């Protein structure tokens, strides 16, 4: 199959570059420039987006430093605490920590399907001086493919 078209991109022969070392250096330099650009890009983006991943207890242990700082918080929705105000479309609930601590959270926006009392959730936002955590993102650990919590549930049902 000698397609004419195959030849249409000519493999141009050109005079050899003068020295191997020179071209090697050139590649190294260009490669390093590209690489440092990538690293710089990553660094800047990282600095802008990095935040603490904390539990409720850890947040409260931070004292005054905890206020007005964007963090990602994990905890459990305290039983019976969630109430939704449909008029303003805001959700209020208490996020429970490990040793009885809890934190009031307010969130407005679409509530994920898996959200319910007692579910493990992740919120992103910041703790206001009023003592309320204002969340701009609410994620629920979705009981999808490889779930852990069914084990305990299953154990409960087996009784």
């Amino acid at each position, binding site marked *: *199959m000698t*397609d*004419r*078209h195959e030849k*249409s*991109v*000519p*493999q*141009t022969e*050109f005079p*050899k*570059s003068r020295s*191997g*070392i020179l*071209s*090697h250096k*050139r*590649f190294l330099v*260009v*490669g390093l420039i*590209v*690489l440092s650009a*990538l690293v710089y*890009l*990553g660094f*800047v*983006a*990282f600095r*802008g*987006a*990095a*935040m*603490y*991943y904390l539990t409720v207890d850890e947040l409260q242990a931070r004292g005054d430093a905890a206020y007005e700082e964007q963090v*990602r918080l*994990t905890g459990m929705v305290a039983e019976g605490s969630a109430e939704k105000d*449909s*008029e*303003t*479309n805001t959700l209020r609930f208490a996020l429970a920590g490990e040793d009885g601590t809890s934190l009031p959270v307010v969130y407005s926006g*679409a509530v*994920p*399907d*898996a959200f*319910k009392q007692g579910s493990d959730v992740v919120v992103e936002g910041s703790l206001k001086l009023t003592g309320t955590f204002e969340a701009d*993102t609410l*994620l*629920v*650990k*979705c*009981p*999808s*493919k*490889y*779930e*852990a919590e*069914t*084990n305990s*549930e*299953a154990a409960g049902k087996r009784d």
Partner: protein
Amino acid sequence: MADLGYAAIITAFIISAYCAVAAFVAARARINELWLSARNAVFVTFGLTSLASAALVYSFFTRDFSIAYVAEYSSSDLPASYTLAGWWAGQAGSMLFMAWILSLLSVIVVVQGQRQNREMTPFVSAVLMGILAYFLGIIAFASNPLEKMPLALSEGMGLNPLLRTSDMFSHPTTLLLGFSIFTVPFAFAMAALISGRLDDWWIHSARRWTLIAWIFLSLGNLFGMVWAYTVLGWGGYWGWDPVENAAFMPWLAATAFLHSVMIQERRGMLKLWNMVLVIITYTLCLFGTLLTRSGMLSSVHAFAMGAVGPLLLALTGLVLVGSLVLLWMRLPRLRSEHRLDSLVSREASFLANNLVLLGAAFAVFWGTVFPILSDAVRGVKVGVGPPFYEQTMAPMFLALIVLMGICPLIGWRKASPENLARNFVYPLAVAMPLALTLYLVGVRPLYAVLAFSALGFVAGAILLEFWRGVRARHRGHGDSYPVALPRLVWHNRRRYGGHIVHIGVILLAMGIAASHMFSTSVEKTVAPGESIEVRDYTVTFRELKESAGSDSLRVTAMLDVSRGGNDAGTLEASKRFEGNDQQPVTDVGLRSTPQEDLYVILSGWTDDGKAILKVAVNPLVMWIWIGGGVMVVGTLIALWPDGRRGRRLPVLERVPVGGLEVGRA
């Protein structure tokens, strides 16, 4: 049945372990009888894993709730189709599913090996069966899907309603297939390293298998995006969740390999680099399998804990260290045959593409594992959200798209000014006015102008290539234009298949860029008769409707849609509550046109019949799915077996001996 299945798993574990050792010894010492025995062991292993899988599926259909896994993922009222999905719905079953695929792949490799690479096949089988034996060991001793409970339950817990969609058949299966198939190119690479035969034999097979795995991985990611967009109602198709990242990283590394492998085929360069890419790709696959099962990261997906995590971590470490040691031992044989001649050449542009793809994979990796790293080093978890990924990926993908326009058209070795002028004047002539027009009509941010003109440039370059090919056929073969196009593609499948994949990427990128930068959404509580206006759409809420099924309740918001004052039909956005725990599932109301999607989520309602609606207009989303489809079709064309057995011709050599070798360091 469960006992029989478990016996099959144990036996398969023993036989595959034997097979790995036997195949290796047979290959090393060239004992043909031993190889024949090992080969039979491959077939037997496949039979046994099939038996175990059949036992699991049988237990599902006979509702055998004495098996913990069956009880956890099904119930007696679960429809037959979803009952089958139980096979891969959970961690233990999905491991068996992967093992079954792996054993099937081993059979294919062995059968193919009777015709090609005969002496090498035992090595390949040894690696494949070794990995399979490890998986079967995990299944047998740490995560047995056929494990019985002391007391049978009267009823199973049923499948999570979120998983009861047709996507449950497309997304997990293709993803698991993709991950599993990447074992094969890895096995070929390891066979080359172990045997010391590092010539081109492995690279052809590795490339084909990688393409197949790449198709499935691409599909898996795409189906996941569709699922997240239409059913899960998360408001988007991609959220940079660790589990999504887990499937995206190997895709990036594999894409890099598929490009750099061409340099090795044509120019005998980058041999070491290609090995490294195969190893990285497979390690990332194992890492992804690990991520979804280890509970290491907080994610919207919940994970199972247990012994499986550490065992998979050990396998990942073992594979990475083992393959790097092998690589180190074979380093002297992986020298390049040639060196890079010029920065303005196809080789150099491919290298740049590789650098950016791996840079992207690394950025994703860094963002994904940083919480673990910082926890280990400083004792605090610090992580990044979507903004990090968006800020790093956007420029990198912009660069990749530009390279995508340059790579296939620039000359090998050293591009001449004529070559550059010939191939890039017209595309630039498309891109420049496009950029200017976009800017003048007020498209902002500038990023958007840049992105869309880059896409125009690449589209121009590819279409020009098609046009030239068609014209050449028309003149050379006398084909009429409509006939020339399919013939052109068919007779140069690899080349034009690749171009078609790139067209798919352009469409996909167009959809992602547009929907990301230009979507608008409004969230509002509305009483019946009230409407929400977004762009030129008016969505009027008519009423809430409740409908009850046997085990489910559905609340639907009935909506009338008009666009620019004209009636545009009706739409339904609903939430259904299903199963034991009445878990809600959001069904998005979607009106999709090539131009834009009208996307309505019913997020809640009040007692007095008002609905809380989120209405979004997402431009060009349909092109993401179309682009994905085009990519898959292009890959299939490139992959279609070549009857002529014609190998790509090496590029003519005019290089003096003793040149500097790139790709060694």
